[in-house]
């Protein structure tokens, strides 16, 4: 497979172009998604020029209208890809996402599936508290919607392709810290990464660090530092939170006997709580230490750098050492 170096933004754009090209039922809708702007981050650039404004619809600023129309399009036989500019704005249309997209297959006894992809951006701290929250736990808590968080450019392309092809609603998170900064080799042409399969980014036998999204790079940096101390950390990138690849996680922790779970979402009731609980329930006898969680603190996201509370590589190193008893 030939590859090219691209940013995550370019990889997402490539996946959208390929999906629209391969299937005329794929339609894109959201605020500003049409050319010339091609999305506020230009991720949908070129789509409306190539596929027309019938299939690429710049909508009013109306998140409930956007996701509701996307649910209707899905019921009508289309494969809509809706963009919600910032993840915080999903709060404006949670009813359509959680009560409709996620529940319609089940409530109808399988008669009304909703093959819908919602792409949404997770802002950085510099936008303030209403544009930067990592809310994936909200969606994990409602059965019926898949939650997908790429950490690399190649995965962004492959996972988005899988989301669009999937027969169920998928929430696809694009973290602004990764969209332009994360660059890597991306397969040219069709590329699909199955949903529900975690990736082991670095093998190790002493401790398991479970991460996803932005925290994968911090986990890899931390693993480097731990290696200098003679500790071999295994880094797992979950890639999708629903479906959750527990077999890969449990297999790893069974070998290492220690685990740290890290994410940008709040620690309290965050995805790490679920992982820690499942690991503890399944591997109580094998664990050498309690499973530790690292995440954002229990306040809205502060604007000032000095108040930032997202875990960094040093936090992961410290947690790993504590777990190993070297803190």
């Amino acid at each position, binding site marked *: 497979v030939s590859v090219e170096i691209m940013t995550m933004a370019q990889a997402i754009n490539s996946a959208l172009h390929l999906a629209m090209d391969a299937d005329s039922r794929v339609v894109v809708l959201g605020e500003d998604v049409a050319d010339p702007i091609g999305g506020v981050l230009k991720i949908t650039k070129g789509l409306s020029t190539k596929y027309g404004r019938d299939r690429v619809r710049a909508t009013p600023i109306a998140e409930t*209208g956007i996701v*509701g129309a996307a*649910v209707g399009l899905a*019921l009508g*036989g289309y494969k809509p890809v809706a963009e919600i500019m910032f993840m915080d704005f999903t709060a404006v249309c949670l*009813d359509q996402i959680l009560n409709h997209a996620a529940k319609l297959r089940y409530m109808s*006894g399988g008669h009304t599936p909703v093959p819908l992809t919602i792409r949404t951006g997770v802002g950085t701290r510099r936008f303030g508290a209403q544009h930067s929250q990592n809310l994936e736990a909200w969606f994990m808590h409602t059965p019926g919607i898949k939650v997908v968080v790429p950490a690399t450019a190649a995965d962004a392309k492959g996972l988005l392709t899988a989301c669009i092809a999937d027969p*169920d609603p998928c929430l696809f998170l694009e973290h602004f810290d990764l969209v332009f900064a994360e660059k890597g080799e991306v397969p040219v042409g069709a590329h699909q990464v199955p949903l529900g399969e975690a990736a082991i980014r670095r093998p190790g036998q002493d401790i398991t660090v479970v991460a996803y999204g932005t925290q994968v790079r911090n986990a890899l940096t931390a693993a480097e530092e731990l290696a200098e101390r003679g500790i071999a950390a295994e880094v797992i990138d979950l890639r999708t939170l629903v*479906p959750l690849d527990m077999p890969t996680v449990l297999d790893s922790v069974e070998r290492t006997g220690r685990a740290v779970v890290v994410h940008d979402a709040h620690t309290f009731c965050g995805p790490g709580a679920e992982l820690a609980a499942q690991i503890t329930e399944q591997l109580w006898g094998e664990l050498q230490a309690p499973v530790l969680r690292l995440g954002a603190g229990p306040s809205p996201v502060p604007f000032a750098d000095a108040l930032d509370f997202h875990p960094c590589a040093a936090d992961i190193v410290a947690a790993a050492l504590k777990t190993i008893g070297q803190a």
Partner: protein
Amino acid sequence: MYRLMALITATSDRAAGEVKSGALASAFYPVRGLEGVCAALGVALQPDDQLVSTYRSLGDALAKGANLRRVIAEIYGRSDGLCGGKGGPMHLQDTSVGFMTSTGVVGSGIPIAVGLGIAAQLDGAARAVVATFGDGATSIGAFHEAMNIAGLWKVPVVFLCQNNQWGEHTPIAEYAASTDLADRARAYAMSSVRVDGFDPVATLGVLREALERARSGGGPTFVEALTYRLTGHSGSSDYSYVPADELAAAMARDPVPTFRRSVLTSGQMSEAELAAIDAEVAAAVDDAFAFATASPPPPSETRYRDVFADPSALTGAGVPA
């Protein structure tokens, strides 16, 4: 049309009665007062037109042609129900007849209907989508967002407001800045008409025109069918708060007996013909309730089916595939 009206009344009254007696443990929302609107809709709709309804969907379901036995079995949560017992009375659907979905959240079906309308546009199909909703739904944001998008893109949707003049337990004048709901639609650059929803013939004429406009590319229409809720909000709630004189005036115009009388006096049908319809409807309702109560409950292995297409997606959530 009379048969459909009589069927809706008989089914609604029977279901409400079963709730009251305790035989049916279900949140059921009666449709008494809407029979004329629902029946007119049933006659005006073509088979490939699509319908999105609300939790008060019994009349709409029967109007669109959903199977009566399976509707009632769903209300009872039985395996032969339209949703296999997973939906209940608030979530009736029968996509085989274009009855696409019913939502339990006020106003939330309206943007979904717009999406179905966009799908019809993209298909290049001459079909219309109808969203039904109560007057209470005109207060919520989803209504306004959907109306704006439909007006903007000339989406083939008929917004059918079944105005029963009560938002749950609050009368319209106490929650709407303007009680002329049809007036709101004009702000979204679409045709708008108010009709007496107790008059099925007048309503049929209005709906036919609106549906034809949608199918022929003329864009959306807002239809306000003015009715009155002849029962409480839900099957079990009282309606002591409804002013007695208003209710008495509405009951005097109860659409089914009123329409029956007009059909009789105009000579369109004889008493014997109407009585035969009444008897046939009563038998159909008895049959459907007998079918529903005899239907087995859904088997436990269906509990986690249809969360996702692939059951193995739940393994990480603790459900073996």
